[in-house]
């Protein structure tokens, strides 16, 4: 029994949320639909932890879907690289679901809640499918599943603010364009190689150097994924989508959605196309590197001038994605590891910040803008305290998880003799202190209206847990660091 479970773990991680999403929609009761969703995300999280342990022993799991052997059948691949986004996505979705219990009924009318949970699980299933699959076309399918579910989730925000519809529409169109570009790329590659399986593709393109169709196919694929990963300047769908989605959805999307696509980006760059070195090196140096540096600054500066807090955090996400892609662009083992470290840390940081801001919004019953924050630091000490800690973590201050990512990123850049990039990274992270401090200062110093607010444990419990992780992984980072270095070794080790 256990054997069968362990053997089928790769597919269970995806199937568990996928199947429950079909049943949740049938439950009209708010509470029970939430319980089922929580149970499902919890099981998924459990499966991914089991998978993690499995990976420690086997280091590479290949799973043939429906016993159709690859390269003909669809193959699921889980290795030391894929396990990182799997843990991030399943873990964050579990905490976000717990958090959603109180928040969801505030923003969405009762009769549609079970539908929202169904979409919620569908989006999670899509994201998990993205990172487990080893088949380029199957990846497209999951890309669409997660995108369409997310679009619908964002649109649910319309019950509170009609802007959500515009945001969802933008997200839909831009996302669809991205997915189309990706599938065109897959088509071109299929045309010249005759395979959809990633590992098979890697082998077959090795003797196709400088084939024009190969380069075109690669370009389409990369750009399609970059849209989904919100790499500057293809990020324009992101700030609106995060800002106007229902709060719980913002938490889920901000912490997980782009991470899956960033992982795919790394996989395509360093694994699928590992045999076309010139192509990859040129892409890294002339496309990803400059874009990442611009993203770091553009995102940060936009955040400094933004008044709406959810949008501010979304802009900050664009900058943070810039750090991750920058780490990939440098392309050494240490820097790719730094990218994965930051991918993990950013998920817990942004998750924490969005939860904190949502809790503030829940109590003031208004859109959270900078002016509405006045004096909230004194009214809600627990939330404020967690918010400050997560902010410090985002800014990369010592004893927090964010510091670990900065430290390894800086070390990787200096090791590859690019001290100017290190300085740029640090200037941008010092600038990020400006917008974080702006919020903290308003909450701390400015007098607000005297409001009596009672913080509720049901809301701040997930905030406290996620803040705790921010501190814990700043003090004991060996798990994340070792995992990321193993992942980088797997990716780069394939290369050379």
């Amino acid at each position, binding site marked *: 029994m256990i054997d069968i479970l362990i053997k089928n773990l790769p597919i269970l991680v995806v199937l568990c949320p996928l199947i429950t999403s079909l049943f949740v929609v049938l439950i009209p009761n708010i509470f029970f639909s939430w319980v089922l969703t929580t149970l499902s995300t919890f099981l998924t999280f459990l499966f991914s932890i089991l998978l993690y342990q499995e990976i420690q022993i086997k280091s590479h799991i290949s799973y043939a879907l429906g016993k159709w052997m690859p390269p003909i059948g669809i193959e699921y691949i889980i290795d030391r690289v894929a396990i990182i986004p799997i843990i991030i996505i399943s873990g964050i979705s579990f905490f976000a679901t717990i958090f959603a219990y109180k928040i969801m009924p505030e923003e969405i009318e009762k009769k549609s809640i079970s539908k929202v949970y169904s979409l919620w699980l569908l989006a999670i299933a899509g994201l998990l499918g993205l990172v487990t699959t080893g088949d380029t076309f199957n990846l497209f399918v999951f890309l669409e599943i997660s995108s369409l579910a997310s679009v619908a989730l964002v649109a649910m925000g319309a019950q509170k603010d009609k802007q959500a519809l515009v945001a969802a529409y933008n997200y839909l169109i831009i996302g669809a364009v991205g997915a189309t570009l990706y599938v065109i790329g897959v088509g071109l590659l299929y045309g010249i190689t005759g395979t959809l399986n990633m590992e098979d593709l890697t082998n077959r393109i090795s003797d196709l150097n400088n084939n024009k169709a190969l380069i075109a196919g690669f370009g389409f694929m990369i750009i399609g994924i970059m849209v989904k990963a919100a790499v500057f300047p293809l990020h324009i769908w992101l700030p609106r989508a995060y800002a106007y989605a229902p709060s719980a959805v913002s938490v889920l999307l901000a912490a997980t959605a782009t991470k899956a696509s960033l992982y795919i980006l790394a996989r395509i760059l360093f694994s699928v196309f590992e045999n076309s070195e010139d192509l990859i090196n040129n892409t890294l140096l002339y496309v990803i590197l400059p874009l990442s540096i611009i993203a770091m600054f553009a995102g940060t500066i936009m955040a400094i001038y933004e008044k709406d807090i959810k949008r501010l955090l979304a802009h900050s996400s664009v900058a943070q994605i810039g750090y991750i892609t920058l780490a990939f662009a440098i392309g050494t083992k240490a820097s790719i590891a730094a990218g994965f470290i930051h991918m993990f840390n950013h998920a817990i940081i942004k998750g924490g910040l969005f939860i904190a801001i949502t809790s503030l919004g829940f109590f003031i019953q208004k859109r959270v803008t900078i002016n509405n924050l006045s004096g909230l630091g004194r009214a809600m000490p627990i939330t404020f305290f967690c918010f400050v800690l997560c902010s*410090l973590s985002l800014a*990369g*201050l*010592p*004893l927090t998880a964010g510091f*670990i990512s*900065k*430290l390894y990123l*800086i*070390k990787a850049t*200096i*090791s590859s003799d690019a*001290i100017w990039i*290190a*300085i740029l990274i*640090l*200037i941008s*992270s*010092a600038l990020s*202190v*400006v917008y974080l*401090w702006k919020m903290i*200062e308003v909450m*701390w*110093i400015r007098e607000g209206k005297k409001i009596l607010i009672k913080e509720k444990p049901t809301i701040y419990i997930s905030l406290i847990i996620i803040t705790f992780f921010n501190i814990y992984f*700043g*003090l*004991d*980072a*060996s798990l994340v*660091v*070792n995992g990321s270095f193993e992942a980088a070794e797997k990716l780069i080790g394939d290369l050379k």
Partner: protein
Amino acid sequence: MITIENFILITILSPLIVCVLTPFISNGIILRDFLGPIGGIISSWGAFNIMSSALNNQNINLEIVNIAEGISIGFEITPLGAIFGLVASFLWIFAAIYSVGYMKGNKEKNQTRFYAFYAIAVHAALCIAYAGDLLTLFIFYEVLTFSTYPLVTHKQNEMAQKAGRLYMSILVGSSVILLLPAIVWVWVATGSLEMSQNGVLDGKIDVAYAPLLLAMFVFGIGKAALMPIHKWLPAAMVAPTPVSALLHAVAVVKAGVFTMLIILTNVFGIDFLAKTGASEWLIWLASFTLLATSIIAIFKDDLKARLAYSTISQLSYITLGGALATSMATQGAALHIITHAAGKITLFFVAGALYVGAKITKISDLNGYGKSASLIFLAFFIGSLSIIGVPPMAGSWSKFFLMLGAADSGYEVVIGIFCVSTILNAFYLMEIPARAFFFKKEREVSVKIPKLILIPTLITSFLTILLFFCIEPFQNLTSMMVGKI
């Protein structure tokens, strides 16, 4: 028998425990108020023992947390660290007593929060003193910055907000943009974050890059307040005076110059600096800061602002001593950490006493107050003499060594700079007792200075005299630091 490892823990943890306990006993006001002094006594008891073990040349390493491979938070006893740790913990006792008097006398709000953050700041300073590697040093350097922010903005008004912004942007900005990459650079170059008594960089880094790396350190350590990154210190004077006294005359700024000295001696190594001349530019920058801020101080009428500029000038003595890269000058610089601390904390105590007792902040309003508050002005007089460097006050020792070091190094001009600055010191500090004792009073105001303020002030001023006669153990430590014993 308590081991030295445990003494390290006792010293650094007692302020942390004070911080944790403070909010819980905020109802029992008397108990809460005495936590600080008690913590200070326990902490400095540990620091004394650490110092005696440092004198016996025991090598102690203590790892607390292993963050990841090659990164850990750990502590180690160095002679310089033993000195700084003792200064910070011992003066905390008096500053804690003084703050009780000040906060009560001034009827400040949010006292519990104040005491809690005050204790964390001391904790961070002590962790810096005993830091075993560069990363631990950096981590607590940042903790110190952030824990002092609520203290600087204690009043929570517009002015405090402005000052807090300047304070944070300079200190955080400089340390994140320059200090952190400099540390990582050393890490990449030498393969570890360790420091050693003779420096670690010799042969590991291209000599042409040494001045650049040094510049990244020097401007990254904003707390040492070298020009042009000194503006945060006058801005921080908006804080209640106990903060200015202990933190912005002792703990924070001394953490800055301590870090500077550690970098100069234990990362670069004075031999490496002397050989390559990498620190030559720093000599001129420090000299310039030293003179320029002394001149600015003359024109400041606000007592605390004048003391702040005087502090910047005195910090430059220490940086200059390190930059001269001779063993005498480095010893002088290390001794100046203690002697200046005792003197300057006294002067700030007096400034706070005058504010509590008579609401005076301006020097021009001091005329004729000498009679009604003679003891407090006597303390100021003694403290000033120490800072000017007149025997038998402690300050004379450090100036003596610094001048010897300048002569050794072959930069005779620096001796002249020290002399000019001494004259300027005398000029701007002596004005205060002179006005108090010899000028005529313009209006009658009674001065009531609480005992809890008066007593610590007198004790610290007495310390400056005591230190003159008891400098020997400290001097032994500093000669160990430069490898003479």
